[in-house]
């Protein structure tokens, strides 16, 4: 086994383990704990991106998700009073329904995983900043500009939504 293979298993186990702890943490029902484990999930996923040679996306993942999105989550958790969460139990029928639907969708996924021809020849693509930037500003200029408009719309929407008297 090569070093990258061992690293893949380490990062995959970290991603999935911390993902489980985001959703069902047996020790704490506090949303802050969930947010912290979400940070760990995202950082180990950035490790998986590095293993897939997507270096720019790994950096963006850490900057945008761990740096901005989680901070936003923590701010909102701080604003709301979520003490009540600890007292509420997870409903057993919700758990059973969740397991049933998730099990069926996983069965669907894995059935298709076995039947599709996997083109795992010799991967040579490198997700460096230069290559990604070149593609972004040649073939994907229009989506790039549209996304900038989307961010402006989101910004104005958030300012409107967080006014004191929302009418």
């Amino acid at each position, binding site marked *: 086994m090569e070093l990258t293979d061992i690293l*893949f298993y380490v990062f995959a186990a970290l991603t999935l383990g911390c993902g489980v702890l985001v959703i069902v943490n047996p020790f704490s029902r506090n*949303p802050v704990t969930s947010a912290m484990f979400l940070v760990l999930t995202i950082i180990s996923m950035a490790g998986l991106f590095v293993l897939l040679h997507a270096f720019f*996306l790994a950096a963006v993942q850490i900057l945008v998700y761990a740096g901005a999105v989680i901070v936003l989550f923590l701010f909102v958790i701080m604003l709301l009073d979520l003490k009540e969460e600890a007292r509420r139990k997870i409903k057993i029928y919700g758990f059973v329904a969740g397991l049933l639907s*998730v099990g069926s969708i996983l069965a669907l996924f894995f059935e298709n995983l076995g039947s599709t021809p996997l083109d795992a020849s010799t991967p040579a693509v490198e997700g460096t900043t230069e290559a990604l930037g070149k593609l972004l500003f040649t073939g994907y200029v229009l989506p790039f500009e549209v996304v900038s408009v989307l961010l402006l719309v989101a910004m104005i929407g958030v300012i409107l939504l967080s006014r004191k008297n*929302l009418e």
Partner: protein
Amino acid sequence: MHVGLEHYLTVSFLLFALGMLGVIMRRNLIVIYMSLELMLNAANLALVAFSRFNNKLDGQVLVFFIITVAAAEVSVGLALIVALYRRRQSAHVEDLTGMKL
């Protein structure tokens, strides 16, 4: 055994299933939002893996856009949750039954 596309896809599937389980099972709006982020990240991982093993960079550009849109979505969604909490004093889906007949 050499790590190939199917290994990454398996991780992506399991992560998506985890996020979906969280959306169905949990009752706190903020934790549901975090589970949605997990599902988006699972899709990102699948896209990057496909991009790597098909020798095309387009998948990674799509992931870049998904991250941008997810950031916008999170900001608007959390603002909505805060506005909702101001009016109802609760962030639980069980208490938000205003549109129930």
